[in-house]
């Protein structure tokens, strides 16, 4: 714990206040790195994209897996196949998955061919900065569905069947039963999923890196904060001190995000 988590963590925080580079030990520079962040255009782009990722991905990852879990929860013949199928993207390598999506969304890929066939014309999924970000979000949601579905399935198994039956007897339809029985029963799980997915979304790296390329899309406009840490702090000329400062910001925002989710949960409890 100390060697693998505490030391690197403390070291990162200390480095954030130095001008250390990969091969050159740094000197204490106070808050200079954080002041530089304020004027670094790429930092603000990274913060914007990471925040957008949370806003776009978290609601989808809280709701869609729940609906999917409700669907595969039913005891229908052959449903086990669908449960496994929905979980497959979770175990697939993100690199492989990313490359497949790149092929699909390429200018001459399958999706664009289909769009062309139906007369929509080609769409620049991998050349437009916003579509690129949206495509990466889609992959994140698609890949995460199965994982959160399993968590919801465990929670749904604990919802007493009698509650549903009583509600049905009272004349509640499927939607009403979902809102008044299912959602309250799995609310704490939804908070957990919200917390886990917002942390994961804010520190997204692989999906955007694979789809937008190492530069972070056209003119770096799709760069996320963790991509910026990687780009700035690695390599022989890496600015370890500055990258550490960005990492500290990522940490602070991540903790703040979780506190926000928990606070919202407590408010509802009250």
């Amino acid at each position: 714990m100390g060697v693998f988590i505490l030391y690197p963590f403390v070291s990162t925080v200390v480095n954030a206040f130095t001008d250390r580079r990969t091969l050159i030990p740094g000197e204490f520079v106070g808050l200079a790195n954080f002041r530089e962040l304020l004027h670094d255009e790429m930092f603000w782009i990274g913060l914007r994209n990471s925040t957008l990722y949370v806003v776009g991905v978290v609601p989808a990852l809280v709701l869609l897996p729940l609906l999917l879990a409700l669907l595969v929860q039913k005891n229908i013949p052959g449903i086990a196949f669908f449960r496994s199928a929905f979980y497959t993207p979770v175990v697939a390598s993100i690199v492989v998955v990313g490359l497949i999506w790149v092929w699909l969304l390429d200018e001459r890929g399958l999706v664009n061919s289909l769009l062309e066939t139906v007369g929509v014309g080609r769409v620049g999924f991998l050349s437009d900065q916003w579509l690129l970000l949206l495509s990466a979000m889609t992959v994140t949601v698609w890949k995460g569905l199965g994982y959160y579905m399993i968590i919801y399935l465990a929670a749904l198994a604990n919802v007493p069947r009698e509650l549903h039956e009583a509600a049905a007897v009272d004349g509640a339809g499927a939607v009403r039963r979902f809102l008044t029985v299912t959602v309250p029963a799995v609310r704490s799980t939804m908070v957990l999923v919200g917390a886990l997915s917002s942390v994961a979304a804010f520190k997204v790296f692989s999906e955007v890196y694979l789809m937008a390329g190492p530069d972070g899309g056209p003119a770096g406009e799709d760069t996320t904060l963790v991509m910026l840490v990687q780009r700035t702090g690695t390599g022989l000329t890496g600015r370890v001190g500055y990258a550490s400062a960005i990492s500290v910001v990522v940490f602070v925002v991540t903790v703040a995000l979780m506190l926000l989710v928990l606070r919202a949960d407590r408010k509802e409890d009250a």
Partner: protein
Amino acid sequence: MRIPRRALAAAVVALVLPLSACGSGSDDSGSTDASGKVEGDITFQTWNLRANFKPYFEGLVADFEKKYPGTHVKWVDQPAEGYADKISADAAGGTLPDVVNVSPDLVAPLAKAGLALDLDKAAAKYKKEYLPGAWASHEIPGMEGTYAFPWYLNTGPLFYNKSLFKEAGLDASKPPKTYDELFDSALELADKSDGEVATLANVPTIEDFGRYGVELMNEEGTGFAFNDAKGVELLTKYKELFDAKALDPQALTATPESSGKKFLTGAVAMNPGSALDLGNFKKQAPNLYKNIGITDQITSTGKVNMYVMGVMVNARTKQKPAAVAFAHFVTDAQNQMSFAKKVAIFPSTAGSLDDPYFTEQDGTDETRVRIAAAKSLTNAVNYTPVLFSEQMKTELRNNVAKALQGKSSPKEALDNAVKACDRLLRQQG
């Protein structure tokens, strides 16, 4: 409380992982004296060569150990991906191998950190064995000395798809030879194909600016200068190509691999390459291979671009005589020639390019490309400045992309790129 603890731990790991490989170094460079008995154990690291050349390197090591009894060479190979990061981690952790395969841009920070042996002092007697330009390719502006033995060189022609040229009504037997011809052909091809076929797949790199005749750095090597009128002219031309779809719309996020694939699939009409690519065309795109056109790299300077590989000696090796002897052994004329016959690379040793292997035609395309490349290497230039780091390349690409998207003018984009690169140069120390 279970949720925040788990999530906090995840956040901490996420925070530290990207940086956990980074460490510190020091500037203790040690002595440059490499005289003494060649003996002891050394480690030699190559860059993604084991998969295809294992027998060659095992033979090389065995020959060296036979020549110098009492030596033992441990050969390690690292994958291409993340090679610079692996060297960074080793350098920072004090575990850099004794002899390391490097490129000039990797040598520069290592030399500045005192980790690369100055061969002008430690191995001056070997200097005359190499082509002067190749030996100089591992000199670092602002520092005295040369910090790696030159190893193999590479350059290549420009491939073009003859059938795409013909379909657009262009004369496939007369490919563009100058930049003006290239830009005209590209615009015509895009126009005739309604934007379906682009001629180029990549945004201009620092090498392209160099080939176009742009002054890349000031004479002292203390600042970049590619924002001059010639640089702006080149970027303005590229903007015109991008708007006309003569430059692939996905060029802003392209990598050499993705553009190679586009050329293979006929989405792009021209692509730079080497003799090695001919085999790929044959195997992966036989139809393209039947229609492949080969022409010289286009330059305004008359000097083509070349890539240089080097072999560096760790300045802190405990076996300096053996490490220097082995680095020289790997790069001597005989071994470079032997390696060049296994793969499409070119020796950096003086006189090797006069070998009949690089001068006599045998009627095959591979030999034609090899001979043309060897001929062009006599005055080739490694245009990429050794101080041009990965971060600088990113700055240039991003600013070029802004100009192509019309978010800034070519002049503003290059001014910003130069400003950012100068700042990074100062921060490198």
